[in-house]
């Protein structure tokens, strides 16, 4: 303390001391932020009072009074706004999950195709990437919805496949599974099988580390995960019936109707995101140095094992972080649903519910909080993964 103050005297006045200046800058920043927030809050309160809008989350218990075309949980016009929020959230998660699966499959296929020795295939994949990632997603959603799905035939002229799947302007109608009592054992068996498979893989890895002997753990766990639920299904007496769609009058009865809005959003999200994923996969695979493949060949490892044990694990280290950020983008982009009226969180909650209640601040804050939470959770797991797969420098 004494030394630093004496040094300060040598160097000159107080305001030249970097430590003091840092404190000053931060104090000014803090004051400015506090002043800004105070002004905003004051203005907002004054405006809300002038418009006669009450603040607070009490409105969540009020009756929403509008219906939603696609609900994964029970919902009627009499349900509360809190229920609306939940329905919207589930719809967002549904289209995001569907989109992530499809985008991953298409993206990996196209990304690997870009590296194919077949010139035509590689160029076709490159064209796919360049076309779809340079066209706004919103435009693609509108295209699929208004230009393609809206021009499909009416229910009476439906296109059908095997008289079980029907495609028309109201969407796709597919057979619906109807679980009978006792069916609950099957998902339970699936969970048990997954846990067992995980234990098996762990044991196999330990055994190989200890004794060098391998187990065909991949095949065994696949058999387990497929076989156990099937066996359970058969043992409890096949408790599942199907409700087949049937044309009665002008519409279909039975089956599940997948809304055209969901289909358009799903198609556009997966095709658009797949273009980005394809680039990530390509650059990930190309980032593995050629020497690694040559070394594996020198050890006379067969091609399949080189790919599985040498190339893919190293490519994954590059691919996974970028892939997760694409997944996050996809989840955030699913909010474009509002442009075609798919009832996602933004459309039903920040749209209809906001218009009815006028509770702009609460509703937008809740909506943003949902996306922020999803982002933070995914980033948390991402950091865990990064820490685990970090290149161990020796």
């Amino acid at each position, binding site marked *: 303390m004494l030394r630093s103050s004496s040094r300060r005297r040598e160097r000159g006045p107080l305001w030249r001391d970097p430590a003091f200046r*840092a404190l000053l800058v931060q104090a000014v920043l803090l004051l400015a*932020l506090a002043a800004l927030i105070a002004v905003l809050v004051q203005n907002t309160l004054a405006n809300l009072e002038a418009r006669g809008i009450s603040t607070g989350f009490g409105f969540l218990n009020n009756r929403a009074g509008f219906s939603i075309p696609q609900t994964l949980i029970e919902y009627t016009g009499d349900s509360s706004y809190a229920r609306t929020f939940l329905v919207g959230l589930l719809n967002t998660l549904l289209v995001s999950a569907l989109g992530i699966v499809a985008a991953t499959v298409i993206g990996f296929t196209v990304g690997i195709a870009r590296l194919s020795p*077949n010139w035509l295939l590689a160029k076709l994949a490159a064209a796919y990437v360049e076309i779809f990632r340079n066209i706004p997603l919103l435009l693609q959603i509108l*295209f699929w919805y208004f*230009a393609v799905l809206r021009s499909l035939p009416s229910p009476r002229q439906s296109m059908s496949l095997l008289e079980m799947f029907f495609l028309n302007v109201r969407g796709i109608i597919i057979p619906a599974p109807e679980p009978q009592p006792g069916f609950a054992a099957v998902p339970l068996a699936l969970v048990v099988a997954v846990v067992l498979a995980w234990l098996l893989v762990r044991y196999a890895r330990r055994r190989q580390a200890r004794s060098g002997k391998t187990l065909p753990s991949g095949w065994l766990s696949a058999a387990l995960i497929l076989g156990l639920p099937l066996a359970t299904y058969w043992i409890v007496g096949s408790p599942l019936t199907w409700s087949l769609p049937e044309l009665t009058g002008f519409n279909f009865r039975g089956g599940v109707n997948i809304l055209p809005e969901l289909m358009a959003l799903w198609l556009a999200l997966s095709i658009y995101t797949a273009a980005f994923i394809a680039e990530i996969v390509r650059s990930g695979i190309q980032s593995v140095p050629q020497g690694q493949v040559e070394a594996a060949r020198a050890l006379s490892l067969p091609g399949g094992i080189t790919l599985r044990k040498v190339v893919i694990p190293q490519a994954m280290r590059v691919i996974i972080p970028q892939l997760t950020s694409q997944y996050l983008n996809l989840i955030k982009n699913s909010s474009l649903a509002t442009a075609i009226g798919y009832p996602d969180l933004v459309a039903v909650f920040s749209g209809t519910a906001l218009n009815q209640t006028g509770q702009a601040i609460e509703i937008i804050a809740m909506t943003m909080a949902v996306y922020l939470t999803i982002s*933070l959770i995914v980033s948390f797991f991402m950091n865990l993964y990064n820490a685990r797969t970090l290149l161990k420098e020796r």
Partner: protein
Amino acid sequence: MSSHTPPIPERRPPRLEQGVVGWLRVNLFSGPLNSLVSVAIIVLLGYLLWPLIQWGLIDADWIGDSREACSGEGACWVFISARLETIVYGFYPQAARWRVDLVFAMLAILIAWLAIPRLPVKRWVCLFALFGFPIIAYVLLAGGHFGLTPVPTRNWGGLMLTLTIAVVGIVGSLPIGVLLALGRRSKMPLVRGVSVVFIEFWRGVPLITVLFMASVMLPLFVPSEVDFDKLLRALVGIMLFWSAYMAEVVRGGLQAIPSGQEEAGKALGLNYWQRMGLIVLPQALKTVIPGIVNTFIALFKDTSLVLVIGLLDLLSIIQAGLTDPDWLGFAIEGYVFAALVYWVFCFSMSRYSQYVERRLDTGHRN
């Protein structure tokens, strides 16, 4: 040493490995599986591409001013050409459109100047593009000064509005992003904390909720006497949102500069802003030009989202045209045209970014 072996006479490569045949054998028909894939793709392309060309070019109708001009066999591009003026200028008054043209021309010259490496005084042009040009463009487009008739922003639309939003977003988000990136690397905990929270907040939410927020919440934040223009509200939201993404790109560049550079600056007695402005930022920004251009591309595509808050940009004006009762049923033509416009802009930007990447790649990468 002394014995001199005569060289083996040169032999021609096998005929099957050169020329068109050789290329085909190596690239398309190198094995049974590859040949199968090639044939499948050729057949597929024939089935898809040919009808597309026939619809879009051969059978299409180009000239006319009403839907009667279209035979209905191919694409009806009359739908586009009849409303091209609206698509480009929106509802900007006819007499004042020269102002838009002038701004377009200035923008094109500025971009070309910045993009072509041989042209001199880049730094000044860049500063002009960031600070001088927006003011001139605003005076010209909005009017109200120097005897120009004022044009309210609700008359702005079409491609002109799309470009306005994109340019304002780019020009606004880059400086804020640089400041945020510097803030995130600051040693002052409060500055760093504020930057991190700001960046992570905007990166965690979808742009559409930001636009909703800008259109319904911003008016609540200011005193009710202040009239907050709808376009301005959207622009504020877009700028804040993209500055967070820009900050992360710039931060990547800052991290790539060895700390010796900054230490050397300190040893020369430069203060913080001199070190950043003269030594670190010029190097950092140069290395991340590709990343910045990629953010521009994303920003450009996402300008189409203003459709949901009712601004009439390129996409919204075409979308609105589809519901015109005189022109029902030309959705595909409208979307294809819009896609083509966006695609040309984005694709040229991405090609430019790849070109810069190659140019900047001075061989230090391993």
